[in-house]
């Protein structure tokens, strides 16, 4: 039994949420459907931890789906790179599910809750599938599964605010365009190489340098994934989707959705196309680097002028994604590692911030805007305290996880003689203090009305857990730092 389990771990991580999503929809009771969802996400998390342990021993696990040997059959690959997004997605979705317990019934009608949980699990399965699969077309399938499920989840927000429908529609259309671009790229590559398996693609591409179809295919794939990863200026679906989705969904999406696509981006850039060095270097230098720098500033400045807090955090996500892609764009081992470190840290930071803001919204029963925040710092000290810690982490202040990512990012840029980029990163992160401080100040300073709020442990427990990680990984970052450096070595090691 255990043997079978451990042999099939790569597929179990995906199958567990996928199968439970089919059952959850049959349970009409709110509580039991939540229990089943929690159980499923917990199991998924457990499986990914087991996978992590396996990876420490084997370092590369290849799993042939249905015993059809690659490159013909579909292959699932787990290595030191893929394990990072797997842990992020499964871990955050577990915490987000715990958090959803009280919040979900508040915003969604009773009879549709089990459907929401079903979609919820489906989205998680899709995201996990994205990062485990080693097959370019299978990846497209998972891309669609996760996108469609998330679109439906966002649309569920319409029960509270009709704007959610517009947001979901935007998300659907732009997401579909992205996925289509990606599949066109895959089609072109299949046409010239005759394979869909990613590792096989890598080998066959090496014989085809300067093939025009190859370049076109690469372009389509990259743009398609960049839409999904919300790389500036292809991020326009993101702020609305995060802002109007049901609160628990914003937490899940903000912390996980773009991470999976960012991982795919890294995989395509540094692994699939590792043999087309000139193409990659040009893309990094002339496309991704400038876009990332613009994203860092555009996202931050938009956030500074934004009044709606969820949108503010969404804009800040755009800027943070900018840091990650910037790290990839520099393209050294240290910088790619920094990108992965920040990918992980940003997930726990944004997860924490969204949970905190959602809890505030839950208690004041209003959309959370800057003005609605006044006095909440005193009314909800625990939530406020966690919010401040996560904010400091986002700003990259010492003793928090965010500092570690900034530190390695800056170090990587300075070691590759790009001090001006380091200064730009720091200016942008100093600017991020402005919008964070704006919120903290309102909560701390203003005391216009007396609000009596009793904080509920079932809501703040998940916030405390995620805040704890923000501090813990600021004090002992060796786990994530070593993991990221191994991942970067795996990605780029074969290259240089």
């Amino acid at each position, binding site marked *: 039994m255990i043997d079978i389990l451990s042999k099939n771990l790569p597929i179990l991580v995906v199958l567990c949420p996928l199968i439970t999503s089919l059952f959850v929809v049959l349970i009409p009771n709110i509580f039991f459907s939540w229990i089943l969802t929690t159980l499923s996400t917990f199991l998924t998390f457990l499986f990914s931890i087991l996978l992590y342990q396996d990876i420490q021993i084997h370092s590369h696990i290849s799993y042939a789906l249905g015993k059809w040997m690659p490159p013909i059959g579909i292959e699932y690959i787990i290595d030191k790179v893929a394990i990072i997004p797997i842990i992020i997605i499964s871990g955050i979705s577990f915490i987000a599910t715990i958090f959803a317990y009280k919040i979900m019934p508040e915003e969604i009608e009773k009879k549709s809750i089990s459907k929401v949980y079903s979609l919820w699990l489906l989205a998680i399965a899709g995201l996990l599938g994205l990062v485990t699969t080693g097959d370019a077309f299978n990846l497209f399938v998972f891309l669609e599964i996760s996108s469609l499920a998330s679109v439906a989840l966002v649309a569920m927000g319409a029960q509270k605010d009709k704007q959610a429908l517009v947001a979901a529609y935007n998300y659907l259309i732009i997401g579909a365009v992205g996925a289509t671009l990606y599949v066109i790229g895959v089609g072109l590559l299949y046409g010239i190489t005759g394979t869909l398996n990613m590792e096989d693609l890598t080998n066959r591409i090496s014989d085809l340098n300067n093939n025009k179809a190859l370049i076109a295919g690469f372009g389509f794939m990259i743009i398609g994934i960049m839409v999904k990863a919300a790389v500036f200026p292809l991020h326009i679906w993101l702020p609305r989707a995060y802002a109007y989705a049901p609160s628990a969904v914003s937490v899940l999406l903000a912390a996980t959705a773009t991470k999976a696509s960012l991982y795919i981006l890294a995989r395509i850039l540094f692994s699939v196309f590792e043999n087309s060095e000139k193409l990659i270097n040009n893309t990094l230098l002339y496309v991704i680097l400038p876009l990332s720098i613009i994203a860092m500033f555009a996202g931050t400045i938009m956030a500074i002028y934004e009044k709606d807090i969820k949108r503010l955090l969404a804009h800040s996500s755009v800027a943070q994604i900018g840091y990650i892609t910037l790290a990839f764009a520099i393209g050294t081992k240290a910088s790619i590692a920094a990108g992965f470190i920040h990918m992980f840290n940003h997930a726990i930071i944004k997860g924490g911030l969204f949970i905190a803001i959602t809890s505030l919204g839950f208690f004041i029963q209003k959309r959370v805007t800057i003005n609605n925040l006044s006095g909440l710092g005193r009314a909800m000290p625990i939530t406020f305290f966690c919010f401040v810690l996560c904010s*400091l982490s986002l700003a*990259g*202040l*010492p*003793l928090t996880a965010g*500092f*570690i990512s*900034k*530190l390695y990012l*800056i*170090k990587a840029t*300075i*070691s590759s003689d790009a*001090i001006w980029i*380091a*200064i730009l990163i*720091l*200016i942008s*992160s*100093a600017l991020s*203090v*402005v919008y964070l*401080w704006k919120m903290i*100040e309102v909560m*701390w*300073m203003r*005391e216009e009305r007396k609000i009596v709020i009793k904080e509920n442990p079932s809501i703040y427990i998940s916030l405390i857990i995620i805040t704890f990680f923000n501090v813990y990984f*600021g*004090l*002992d*970052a*060796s786990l994530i*730092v*070593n993991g990221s450096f191994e991942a970067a070595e795996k990605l780029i090691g074969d290259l240089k």
Partner: protein
Amino acid sequence: MITIENFILITILSPLIVCVLTPFISKSTVLRDFLGPIGGVISSWGAFNIMSSALNNQNINLEIVKIAEGISIGFEITPLGAIFGLVASFLWIFAAIYSVGYMRGNKEKNQTRFYAFYAIAVHAALCIAYAGDLLTLFIFYEVLTFSTYPLVTHKQNEMAQKAGRLYMSILVGSSVILLLPAIIWVWVATGSLEMSHNGVLDGKIDVAYAPLLLAMFVFGIGKAALMPIHKWLPAAMVAPTPVSALLHAVAVVKAGVFTMLIVLTNVFGIDFLAKTGASEWLIWLASFTLLATSIIAIYKDDLKARLAYSTISQLSYISLGGALATSMATQGAALHIITHAAGKITLFFVAGALYVGAKITKISDLNGHGKSASLIFLAFFIGSLSIIGVPPMAGSWSKFFLMLGAADSGYEVVIGVFCISTILNAFYLMEIPARAFFFKKEREVSVKIPKLILIPTLITSFLTILLFFFIEPFQNLTSMMVGKI
């Protein structure tokens, strides 16, 4: 027998424990209020022992947390750190007693929160003093900034909010944008975050870039308040006076100049600076700040604002001493950390006492109050003399060494700067006791100063005299710092 490692822990952890305990015992106000002084006594007991071990030249390294490969939070004892640690923890005793008198006398709100953050700020300052590497230094530098924000904005009104914004944006902005990359630059150039008493940069960095790197450090260390990044200090004066006294005359600003001196001596190394002349521009900037803020101080009628500008001017003495890059000047700068601290804390104590006792904040309102509050003005007089540099007050030693250092370095103009500034100091500080004792009273206000305020003030003013006679151990430490022993 307690080892020195444990003394470090005792010194830095006792304020932290005070901070953690304060909210839990807030029901009993007596216990809560005197937790601070008790913590101060324990902390400075540790600091004394650390100093004696520093005098014996013991080399102590203590790693607390290993964050990742090559990054850790660790402590070690340097002569300069031993001095700064002792200053911060010892003066905390009196500042904590004083705060009790002040907060009670003023009937301030949220006292529990105040004491908790006060203690954590002291903790951060002590961690800076014993920081073992650049990163630890930076981390606690930021902790200090953030822990003092709730203190600066204690009143939680419009003015406090504005001041808080300025405070945070200058201190956080400068440190994040300039100090952090400067530290990482050193890290990349030398391959480690360690410091050494001869400096680590010699031969590791292109000499042409040295002034640029130094500029990133100098303007990144906003707490040292060199122009043009000095504005946060006058703004921070909206805080209750105990905060201005301990933090904005001792812990925070001294953490700034301490960092500056550490960077000049242990990162660049005075030999490297003297050889390359990388710090020459800093001499002129510090001299300018020194004179300009002294002149501004003359025109300030608000007592705390005048003291704030005087503080900025005195901080520049220290930066200037480091920038002169001779062993005498550096010693003078290091001694000035301790002598100025004792003097300036007394002056702020007096300012707070006058506010509690008679709600006086303006210098022009002081006329004739010398009779009803003679002791407090006597304390002010002694503190002022020390800052001006008149023997037998402690301040005369540091000025003496600074002047010797200026003569050594070949920048004779700087001696002139010191002389002019001394005259200006005398001018703007002496006005206060002069008005109190010799001017005619304009209106009848009774000045009642609580004992809990009066006693610490008298003790710190007495300390400035005491220090004049017992400067030797400190002077030994500073000569160790510049490598003479």
